[in-house]
Structure formats: structure tokens, C-alpha cells
């Protein structure tokens, strides 16, 4: 029986190092190839030996699909393709292709230069890896090979994030990657058509959350920034370089524009500048407002936001600074934080989640005295705010997407097991769709409901037939109906029509048959008409037999029998015979 097999190598009941193996109709596809933020040992990358024990990666995998440029979805890519060794195609969208190497390079630098790791992938490997990438457009159907095709849908989340539909024959799987069902300031909402896949693999980061309106959050954020700036204070916003940072920039930029504010906004330079450049280029991937107005002005060409210089931090007067990294554990954001922490007029806004142990986490949990390196104690007098700007779909959004796509079954990844459990139950209850949530390394096998009933039944017709063989070579092939019948061990079913024609003829049956034979012979010149020794007449496969009913010697009954395939000839013959036989010359 055909089936779809799914094995998460990462992100099964977990967040991080997304990597899911899908076997669909004999094709093997790897979805995402990410790293785990929580580990620094081998566990940070997916366990590719699961595949390599059977041979080379390239032989096993038909293609690799990367949904978006976040490192937990693409971080292991150079390791996978260059160090483990994979030469097949890697599919991603154009923005992902553009931004992904920047992030990988950044990741490599931190790992190798800062932490001094050996045996890590090199810049050259990133470049080589990117050469294997094939970029796809939204809604473009890409034929990976003769049978496998993939198609990208818009997913929101970050620039270039996409959901992918993988299709072989009539079986299909949709992988959502990370997505967002509510639009934000720079991206639109995820959208998919009613493609009715066999399986929908969806992220479930916020499986148990229904979120509040984003407007309140935005308004709060703007109000806080505005108030602080008006008081003459400085605002520090630690951000991760890509994604939320751009959203917040747009938010502040438009607010500044609307309110005619003159206070400077700075963005710490480096990697963000390069990324911003790509944001300007990929306008079709942004939301309605930006798409509509970019002809007049590209929203990413910020008027008020300038590049930050180290020296600006000591400038008097109000200002707003976006600085990396987002959790205040190192780098520029921490430096600025130390400078500004002592003044109660200033404010720091944490726009996202902070890992335990970072400065960000400490100040958010209310610590006012921080021990810095060298036994310094930093007293935090500045205001600390927390503002959650997350771009994942919440429970309602996930349900909405499932409702839109109408899959036969759903598989949850990229979330915590306990939360998944709840969502799974909800999906099964409310949408009446079977739902799975495999752990890493666990394989889910789904039977697909392609209707084989046709093959089993007795109605094989026509000359060709689509056959799919099992286990050994799970492929479709075209065979003739005879061969199909032979292989399936079925006897051909014959459909015959029989008709009686009454003829006025006083002679014997044999003579009548002979007359019919000669008559038909004269009419049907290009058909093979035969008079069989048992007294019956055949025209091709049509059989005619004359019989004499006992009660009336004056009439003869002519039995005409033909198969379904000879319908035309058979009906012609009956109508011909019904007209009667020509008077014999005798």
C-alpha cells in the first residue's frame, strides 16, 4: 500500500534544529536543516547518521527544502551539504537565498572566532553550499524530477518565509515552516489555497495561546517610546538583527513621520545594514501598505533611522537606538546598556524572549543590581519594559490554516510536547482530522487513501492502466490492460449483448443460416464473414445462430450475440436483419 512516512530529525516535540524527513511515494525530501540554540555540542545539528547508515545522502534524498532564513531552520545547511556531503538540489525562496548566507557567516564567526571552535564549517563551505541552492518564486510549481514537484506559498513570519507543498502524483504534503496568520507592519499574513494535502506538517510554537490584538502592543510600544523621548530620555531596544527589528523600525519610522518627531533613531550597523538592503529589494514579499506605497517611497529607505556610531551613545539629549544582540548578553547592546543603565529617565525595551542567564532575563525578572565581569556591580535605574512581538501563528491561527488547507491529517512539529498534546486533541475534536506529533527520530507512517477499488473491481476497460508496485520499487507505471490483468491475476470480464430477430422463412434452419450468410457476405464486403460448420455464422466476433421455434414453422428466430467492444457492428447487424432478407432468386 502507498504511504507517507515522516521522521523528524529535529523539531519533533521541540523547538530548534528543524529537520524533517518525508518519504512520499518513494521520494525522500528533507524539510529544513536547522541548528539548535540550546546546545553547543553535537546535539546542535540534526543526526544525519540516521540517513547515512544506508549510504550517501545524495543517493537517498531527492531534494532539500529550506522554509526561511532563521538559523534554527537553515543553520546546519553548510555542515550537512559540505561536511556530511550532499550534492542534490536545495530549494528556497529568493529572499531566503539572499539573506541566508549573511546569517550563516555571522553564526560561523561567533562560533569560530569568539568561541574558538574547531571543526566548524568555513566561509568557503557556506559559499559552496549556496551554489547548490535553487531559488523558487511564490506559487511557482517546480519540477524537481519527473514525478516530484514543489510549490511555495506565502507564510509571513519573516521576509521570504514560505510554506511548501510537496507533491508526487496525487499525493501531497504541505510543510508550513514558521508562519504568521496576522499581518504585521512589514509582512502580510500566511495564505494557502484549498489544496487538500494528505498531510499538513505545521509548526505549533503557540499551541496553547490565543493572542491579544497586536494593535494594543504596538500602541503601548509607541507610547512608551514617545513618552520617554519627550522626557528627554534615551531608549535602547535590543533586537536580533533580522525579522522583528525591521518591523519595529517601520513602526517607529512611520510614527516619527506621522507625529513629525525629530529625535534621532539609530540602528547599530554591521549585518543589519546588508540585510536591510535586501528588505528594500524584495518588496513583493512585504505587506499591502508597503507594496502600495513603494512607488512613491520605499518604506525601508528610512528617513529617520541612521547608522549608529559608538560615539553617539554619549551624546546628550534623547535618542532611540536599536542594537544587537537581543538578549543583552554581549556586544553593542550590552555596552550601550551599561552606559545608560544609571539614568532613570532612560528606558530599555525588550521586544522578545530572553534565555535564562542573560542580562536581559535578569533585568526582566526584576533584578536591579547586576554583577558584571570584574566584580563590578551595575545598578539599573533605567526603566525596563517588556513587549512581546512574536510572528508565529497562535492556536487560533493554526486552526485557521488547517481549515483553509483541508488536509486529511495533521502533523505537529516545532513546539513543546505538552502544548502539542492540547492542540492535537483540539484538532481531532473540532476538525475531525487525525493528528500526529512524533518525537525526534520517531517515524509516523500514514496510509494514503488513493482509491485502488477500481483495480480490484471487474471493470478494467481501455487499453492502459496505471499500476503501482509495492515495496521494492514504489513507482507508478503504465501497462496494458491485459498485462495488468495478468499481474493482478484477474480474469477478463466479458460483456455480451444478445438479440433475437424473427425472420419469415419456411425453410430449414441451415438454409436460413446459409441465406443470412450469403446476404451478409454481399453487404459487408470488408468484414470477415464466416459460416461455421455447426451452422452458425460469425461476422468478426459477432455470432449469429438460426433456430426454429416449435410452435410456428413459418418463422425462424435468429440469435445475434456480440461483445461490448463490437457494439457498433452488432447493432448494425440487428437493424440490417430486422429489415428482412432479400427474396432469394430461387
Amino acid at each position, binding site marked *: 500500500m502507498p504511504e507517507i512516512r515522516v521522521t523528524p530529525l529535529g523539531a519533533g516535540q521541540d523547538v530548534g534544529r528543524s529537520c524533517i524527513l518525508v518519504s512520499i511515494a518513494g521520494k525522500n525530501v528533507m524539510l529544513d536543516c536547522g541548528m539548535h540554540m540550546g546546545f553547543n555540542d553535537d546535539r546542535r545539528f540534526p543526526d544525519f547518521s540516521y540517513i547515512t547508515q544506508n549510504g550517501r545522502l545524495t543517493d537517498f534524498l531527492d531534494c532539500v527544502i529550506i522554509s526561511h532564513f532563521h538559523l534554527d531552520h537553515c543553520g546546519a545547511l553548510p555542515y550537512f551539504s559540505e561536511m556530511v556531503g550532499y550534492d542534490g538540489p536545495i530549494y528556497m525562496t529568493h529572499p531566503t537565498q539572499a539573506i541566508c548566507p549573511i546569517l550563516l557567516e555571522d553564526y560561523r564567526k561567533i562560533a569560530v572566532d569568539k568561541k574558538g571552535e574547531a571543526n566548524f564549517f568555513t566561509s568557503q563551505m557556506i559559499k559552496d553550499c549556496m551554489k547548490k541552492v535553487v531559488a523558487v518564486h511564490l506559487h511557482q510549481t517546480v519540477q524537481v524530477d519527473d514525478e516530484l514537484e514543489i510549490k511555495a506559498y506565502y507564510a509571513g513570519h519573516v521576509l521570504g518565509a514560505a510554506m511548501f507543498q510537496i507533491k508526487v502524483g496525487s499525493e501531497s504534503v504541505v510543510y508550513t515552516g514558521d508562519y504568521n496568520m*496576522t*499581518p504585521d*507592519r512589514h509582512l*502580510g*499574513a500566511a*495564505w*494557502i*489555497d*484549498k489544496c487538500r494535502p494528505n498531510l499538513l506538517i505545521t509548526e505549533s510554537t503557540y499551541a*496553547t*495561546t*490565543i*493572542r*491579544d*490584538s*497586536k*494593535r*494594543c*502592543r*504596538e*500602541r*503601548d510600544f*509607541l*507610547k*512608551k517610546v*514617545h513618552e520617554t523621548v519627550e522626557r528627554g530620555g534615551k531608549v535602547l531596544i535590543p533586537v536580533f538583527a533580522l525579522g522583528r527589528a525591521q518591523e519595529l523600525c517601520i513602526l517607529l519610522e*512611520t510614527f516619527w*513621520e*506621522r*507625529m*513629525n518627531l525629530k529625535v534621532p533613531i539609530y540602528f547599530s550597523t554591521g549585518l543589519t545594514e546588508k540585510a536591510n538592503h535586501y528588505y528594500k529589494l524584495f518588496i513583493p514579499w512585504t*505587506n*499591502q*501598505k508597503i507594496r502600495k506605497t513603494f512607488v512613491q517611497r520605499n518604506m525601508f529607505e528610512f528617513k529617520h533611522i541612521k547608522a549608529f556610531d559608538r560615539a553617539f551613545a554619549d551624546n546628550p539629549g534623547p535618542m532611540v537606538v536599536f542594537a544587537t544582540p537581543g538578549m543583552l548578553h554581549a556586544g553593542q547592546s550590552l555596552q550601550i546598556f551599561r552606559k545608560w543603565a544609571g539614568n532613570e529617565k532612560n528606558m530599555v525595551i*525588550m521586544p522578545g524572549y530572553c534565555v535564562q542567564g542573560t542580562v536581559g532575563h535578569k533585568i*526582566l*525578572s*526584576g533584578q536591579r543590581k547586576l554583577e558584571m565581569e570584574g566584580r563590578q556591580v551595575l545598578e539599573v535605574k533605567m*526603566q*525596563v*519594559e*517588556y513587549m512581546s512581538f512574536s510572528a508565529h501563528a497562535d*492556536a*487560533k491561527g493554526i*486552526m*485557521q490554516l488547517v*481549515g*483553509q488547507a483541508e488536509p486529511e491529517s495533521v502533523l505537529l512539529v516545532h513546539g513543546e510536547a505538552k*502544548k502539542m498534546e*492540547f492542540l492535537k*486533541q*483540539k484538532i481531532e475534536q*473540532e*476538525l475531525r482530522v487525525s493528528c500526529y506529533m512524533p518525537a525526534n527520530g520517531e517515524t509516523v507512517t500514514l496510509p494514503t487513501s488513493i482509491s485502488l477499488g477500481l483495480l480490484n473491481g471487474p471493470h478494467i476497460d481501455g487499453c492502459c492502466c496505471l499500476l503501482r508496485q509495492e515495496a521494492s520499487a514504489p513507482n507508478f507505471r503504465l501497462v496494458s490492460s491485459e498485462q495488468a490483468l495478468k499481474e493482478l491475476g484477474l480474469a477478463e470480464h466479458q460483456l455480451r449483448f444478445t438479440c433475437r430477430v424473427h425472420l419469415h422463412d419456411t425453410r430449414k434452419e441451415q438454409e436460413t443460416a446459409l441465406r443470412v450468410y450469403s446476404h451478409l457476405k454481399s453487404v459487408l464486403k470488408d468484414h470477415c464473414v464466416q459460416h461455421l460448420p455447426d451452422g452458425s455464422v460469425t461476422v468478426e466476433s459477432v455470432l449469429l445462430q438460426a433456430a426454429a421455434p416449435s410452435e410456428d414453422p413459418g418463422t425462424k428466430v435468429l440469435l445475434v450475440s456480440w461483445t461490448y467492444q463490437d457494439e457498433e457492428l452488432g447493432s448494425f447487424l440487428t437493424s440490417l436483419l430486422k429489415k428482412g432478407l432479400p427474396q432469394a432468386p430461387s
Partner: protein
Amino acid sequence: MAAHLKKRVYEEFTKVVQPQEEIATKKLRLTKPSKSAALHIDLCKATSPADALQYLLQFARKPVEAESVEGVVRILLEHYYKENDPSVRLKIASLLGLLSKTAGFSPDCIMDDAINILQNEKSHQVLAQLLDTLLAIGTKLPENQAIQMRLVDVACKHLTDTSHGVRNKCLQLLGNLGSLEKSVTKDAEGLAARDVQKIIGDYFSDQDPRVRTAAIKAMLQLHERGLKLHQTIYNQACKLLSDDYEQVRSAAVQLIWVVSQLYPESIVPIPSSNEEIRLVDDAFGKICHMVSDGSWVVRVQAAKLLGSMEQVSSHFLEQTLDKKLMSDLRRKRTAHERAKELYSSGEFSSGRKWGDDAPKEEVDTGAVNLIESGACGAFVHGLEDEMYEVRIAAVEALCMLAQSSPSFAEKCLDFLVDMFNDEIEEVRLQSIHTMRKISNNITLREDQLDTVLAVLEDSSRDIREALHELLCCTNVSTKEGIHLALVELLKNLTKYPTDRDSIWKCLKFLGSRHPTLVLPLVPELLSTHPFFDTAEPDMDDPAYIAVLVLIFNAAKTCPTMPALFSDHTFRHYAYLRDSLSHLVPALRLPGRKLVSSAVSPSIIPQEDPSQQFLQQSLERVYSLQHLDPQGAQELLEFTIRDLQRLGELQSELAGVADFSATYLRCQLLLIKALQEKLWNVAAPLYLKQSDLASAAAKQIMEETYKMEFMYSGVENKQVVIIHHMRLQAKALQLIVTARTTRGLDPLFGMCEKFLQEVDFFQRYFIADLPHLQDSFVDKLLDLMPRLMTSKPAEVVKILQTMLRQSAFLHLPLPEQIHKASATIIEPAGESDNPLRFTSGLVVALDVDATLEHVQDPQNTVKVQVLYPDGQAQMIHPKPADFRNPGPGRHRLITQVYLSHTAWTEACQVEVRLLLAYNSSARIPKCPWMEGGEMSPQVETSIEGTIPFSKPVKVYIMPKPARR
């Protein structure tokens, strides 16, 4: 030439018209056969289908008269039978449809043919077109039951066609012509009336989405035609909501809405439970669900329809704003709820703690319903939608629902306030307007006010002004709120000084609405000190004026407030009362005489006395007829004076007073002109003195145009009188010219023109003539036959005596009449710095004006620029430059481009607003005009203009270009 004219006047004056008419009718008859014949010849000539198609296309461009339609149809049908090419047949079929729509042609004669050719047609496209033709025929004959039945029958027969186009058209036909009841009339031919709803309903499950859509549309069409759909359709329609195609879903949403309006109270079961709910609630839930549909077209449709479902029960309605937040399976309060709680607990939002929004209670996992909650959070989704079209639709729906339910209004406030920060300006503006509309039902909390006021810094003027309008009619709950509003408005004022007037007006209403809240703020606002005298603020400071406007308006209904004023405040009050009387009300101040107590509205209980006064003075004028000319003049003069004064004092009567005063002035001018001595003097002597009479005639004309076009609410009764006055002026003009010019030639023309005018008058106002007893025109019409045959000199003489004898017509006063007025706010005309620009190039001048009581300003209001060299330029502002902030009020914000050759020094140009009018567009269409095509240019052409604003001078300086 002269001799010929003379002849005409003497002999054939009346006969000239008729032969012309005959010629005209003959012409019509000549063209009739030629049209169909020409078509016939053309079609016969056509060698190829392409040729024939060309001829048909050419033919379709020209209109066909009703009488010749049938002939043309016959020829077309004849060719139809012969034609082999389906594209030509298609065109013929469409032409048949067009022709059967011709006014005055009864298409029942071609129906049989059309049905006939339908039976033999093979091409699906042509079939569809033929059905369309039948639809045109059927709609033309709505009362013929038999035909309708027959057409329905034909449609039913073709419903099984394989082409979706044909099925579409059949369904359309059924929707337009079918009837619901099974036994309306038993037709003689035995065509039983079919149950169309069932037939159409069967096609809800057609395989083609286009046909499904057409079926739903047909159903909606049935509803529109007033047939009551059965409730059974509801379940069918609900199934269509999950259709794969967006157009089907969109139409299905409409259908569900229709059914919910038809059967709001009937009960439907909830599937998978044994509960039952009202149909309208169920439908509401379903439509709410569609607000999160995959297609934005459907979302817009659903959001729009939600607004009109007013019968829905309130707990369902309130669910639309409730998303049931949860976090990690624990119930969470929304930010709105938190804000409310913080407010009620007296502590202001800190938002400082990370866990501030930490979830509280544990949610029962079984009880949480993620999608089937129906209405849950529909508006939350709609307002957050990606497409601004959906957001606008949602805001509009919120507005409509909030207007009908005060409790909902209170709840949706938070969401509307949030929309003030939308990224698209249109949405922001829309939500501010919405808020204004529901402001009667709500009181703003302080934190909400805070958010509202934050928008005052918006750089868009429209937003700020809409917000000022909103603040005019909001209720604020606390004195801190008022203070906050004032502070923010003053901030706005310093940032955007051009908002001055709008802010003052806003504070005026804010003050008069909340006198008790302003009272405790007064010492602080005026910065008075119990012991020390503080410095006197600058009287010209707009911010200070703003504060005073707030306080004085509050003091109007709060008698204790003036006690808190310091001396200079009283002085400033007196100054402002004079200079900004529209913003500062009259106050009863202690120790001061009320100068204008007699007119102060607070003292006069009702406006009855002034109304009475108006009536009396107008009645007094009626006795005019019996007075000697001198007395009449005096009476008119002082009545006009009275009326003018009354208009100044009583703003609500200003329109009426002005209107009647203008009329009386016309009468006065007429009397004066007729009193001139010149009439008694021999012709050659008064050449020079005739100035007065002709000037009077001219002025009367102008005044009558003003009366006709500058007042809103003028009814037909008044228009007659005004036209009558104008006719008198024209007669006067004729008389004066006759006296002053030598020779008869120009007089012939004038006489003829005048008589034509009289003729027009008679035709336009034939219905009103009985009211004009004894008037000038009444007498004139009596003598018309004589006038027609008289020589000009005689005509003039008759007119002169008639003018003197004619009775004064009373002007019936309309119910509501307002004089159009305009004030140019910008340019202010105060600047001493000339606007410099290079000659030959243009400079843009911002013009900002408010218009009151102007009807159709987009077409009538023009801007005129007068250069010092007498050159005048008229500018037509774009329709988009007009905004409509309130009923009867308009705002013109536009840019005027100035240009001129180089000047040696700066000079002033005048900018003013004109009201363009065109008297022929205003006159009701007469029967004889309906037949002929009124070219659209007549409507827009300008006959003349009336200046209706004070001119503003702008200093400009075109410099010569440097080479």
C-alpha cells in the same frame, strides 16, 4: 434685410413656427425605411462573416427609432436564419436584445421568433446570447404573465445544457422572471407555473462554480424582486459557505444574510447538540466565521454585511469583540481589560513588570473551543486584517452596530481607539469618523482619551481636523481628562498653528459640554493666585485665546465661574466677545450691564417674537399696493432695514430675512426706476439720465440670480416669483433701450427675444400661473396675441403701462432657507512678505475655505484670481478638494496656480470664490425636452457667476528670469 424683417413683423409673425415643425417630422419619416433597408442591403452585400460583422457593428452605433425597430428586427432575423458563422449570429442575437430595449417598442412580437431560433441553435455562445435577449424581452414586459411563464419554461429546458454560459443565462432568466408560488395562474396552454426556487436551488450543487454563483445570484434576484424566499434555502446556503471558489462563498454570504433578514426569529438546531438558537444568531455566527476566510473578497463582503444585522442578540454581538485570550492554557486578560482594571483601581498603567500580563486562572482544556466559537473575535480579526479594505469594512460595520446598541458601543470603543494607529490613513480617518458618530453613546475613559489625544500630533491635517470634530462631541468623565485634552490641543496648536480655528471651535464645544469639570480648573488655567496679581497674558496669543474660549463657554451655564476671573479676564472677555463673537457666548457678568440683553438667546425664551416680527414686517409690505409711490418707497426702505438688522441679530432667521430683504430691494428698485421723471420727458432729452433706470434693471437681474442660486432650500414657488421679477427687469430694460436708441432695427430683435422669454416663462411655470393673479405676467399673457402682432414701439408702450399697473407679488417664505456663504481662511491676506517667483513659471497658492449651505459645491464653486492688470482667471477645483465635515458644510482645500509676466514691484492679487450657476440646468425638465437628447454639456456649462466670499488680497512678486 430690414424690409424683410418688417414684412415678417407685420404679416407673418405668428405663422413662422409651424412649417418648421412639419419639416422636422417629415425628416423623421424619411429616415425610417432607409435604416432597415440600408442594413438589408449591407448585409446582402457582405461577402464574408467578417464583413457582415463590420456592418452590424456600424449599425449598432446608431440609435434606432421605436417605429422602425420591428422592420430592422425582421431583417436581422432573416439574416440570422441564413447565417452560418456563429460569431455573426451572436452579434445579431445581441442586437436583438439591444433593439428590444428601445423605448416605446413592444418586444412581444419578436419573442416567438427568438424562442424559435433558440430551438435550432447549436452554438453555446449564441444560445447564451439568445437567452440574454429573451431576458431583455422578459424584463420589458413585466406584467405579461403568459410570456413570463413561457420564458421560464424555455429557461428550464436549457438548464441541462453542457455549457456553463447557457446555464448561467438560464438561471439569470429564472431569477429575473420566475415566480415562487406554485399556482399563480393556470395558463391556457397548460404551462404550469414552476417552483423556481426549487429549480434554482438544485443548481447550488452544480459542478461548475460559475453556475453555482449564478444560481445564488438568481436567488438573490428573486429576493430583490420582492418574492419571499423559503427558509429551507438556509441550510443549502450554509453548505455553500465552504465552497472551493471565492465567488460562490461571497454570494453565499449574501444569501445567508438575506435569509437571516427574512426569518430572524425562527429557530434552527445547532448540529451535534440538541440546543437551538435563533436563525439570525446562527447566521451571524456563520458570517462572522467568514471574516477569517482565505479570500479577502469574501472577508470584505462578510465584514460589510455584519454591520446591518441589527437583530442579533447582544451576547452574540459582544462575542465578536472577545477572543478569549489564553496563554499556556491559562486564561489571560486582554490588554484592554487590564487597562480598565488599572484605571478602576486608581493606579495608572505601569507595564513595567515582565509578568504583568501573566495569565491567571487555569482553563479547562475541554471547554476551550478554538474555532467553532462562531462569532468569537470576528471583529478582532477583521480589524487586524492584512487588507485595508477589510479593515475599513469592519470599522464601518462596527459603527453601524454600535449606533444601534449602546452597550456594544461602549465595548467596541477600545478597538476603535486602537484603529487610530492604523498604518493606512484612510482607515484612521474612517475610525475617527465612526467614533464621532457613536459619541453620543459613550464616555471616554482617561486612558482612552490619552490614546485619542496622542493622534493630535498626526501630520495629516484631515486626521487632526476629524479628531477636533470628534472632541467637539465627546463626553469626558473627569477634570483631568479635560485638562489633558486642553494641554494636548495647545501642543497641537504650537506644532501646527494653522489649526487655530479648528482648535478654538473644538474648545468651544468642550467647554460648553463640561462646565462642571472646567470649573475646578479655572484658577490653574488662568494662572490666578489668591494673593498675588499675576502678569497679564498676551491677548494675541492663540493659546491664551484657546484657554479663554474654553472657560467662557463653560461659564455660560456655570454662573459661579465669573467670580474666579481677574480684572483683565473681563477686559479680554469684552474684546473677544466682539472680535470672535462666534466662539464666545454672551455671559451675564456681575456688575456689568448686558449690552445686548435683548438679543441674547439665554434671555429670550423662544424665537417666537422675532419670528413674529418678521411676519409682521412682511405683512406690512403687502399693503404696498394701496400706497402712493413715495410712501411705498419709504415703507420698503425701512422694512428692508428692519429685515437686515433682524438677520444680523438672529442667526437662525438670517436666511429668511436676507432672502426677503433682497426681494423687497428688487421691488424698491423697480418702483424707483418707474418713478423716474424721464418717462415724462420727450425721448431725445433723457439720453443721459436714463442711467439710473438701466442700472436698476441690471441690478435687479443680478439680485434675482443671487436669490435663485445662493440660497439653499428655495422651492419652486419661490423660483416662479424670482423669475417673474427677472421678467419685469427685462421688460424694464427693453423699455429703457427703446427710449434711448434710435431706429427700430435692434428693437425688433429685442422685442422678439422678450416675447420668447415670456413664452418660456409660460411653459416652465404653467402650473403656477394661477397663483400669479393680477401680476405683470398675468396681464402680459392676456395681451399676448396683441403683442405678437404689434410694432415694437407699441409693445414698449404696453409694457410700460403694465409695469406700472402690475400688482406686487407676495413672496411665500420657504420652510428652511439658508444663504450660501464662504470664508477664505487661507490665504489670510495679512502677510507683508510678497510671494516671490520667477515670471512665466507658476507658484502654488494654498487656498483653504469653508463653505456653508452650498449645494453641489463640486460643480458650482470656483476660485477666481484677479490680477492688478484686470486679468481675471477662473480656476475649477478638483472634486477631491472638497470635504464634507458636516451637513450643509463643506471645506475647500486646494491649490491655485498663479503666474504672470514680470512686475517691477510686488503687487496684490485678489482671490475670491465664485458660485457658478446655470439657470437652464435648474429648471425642471419639460415634456418637450425629454424627447430630445439633452447634451451633458448643458448641465455643466456656466451661465454666470456670483461672487460669494470676501476677496482676499495676496501679495505676489513675479521676478524676471535671470539669464
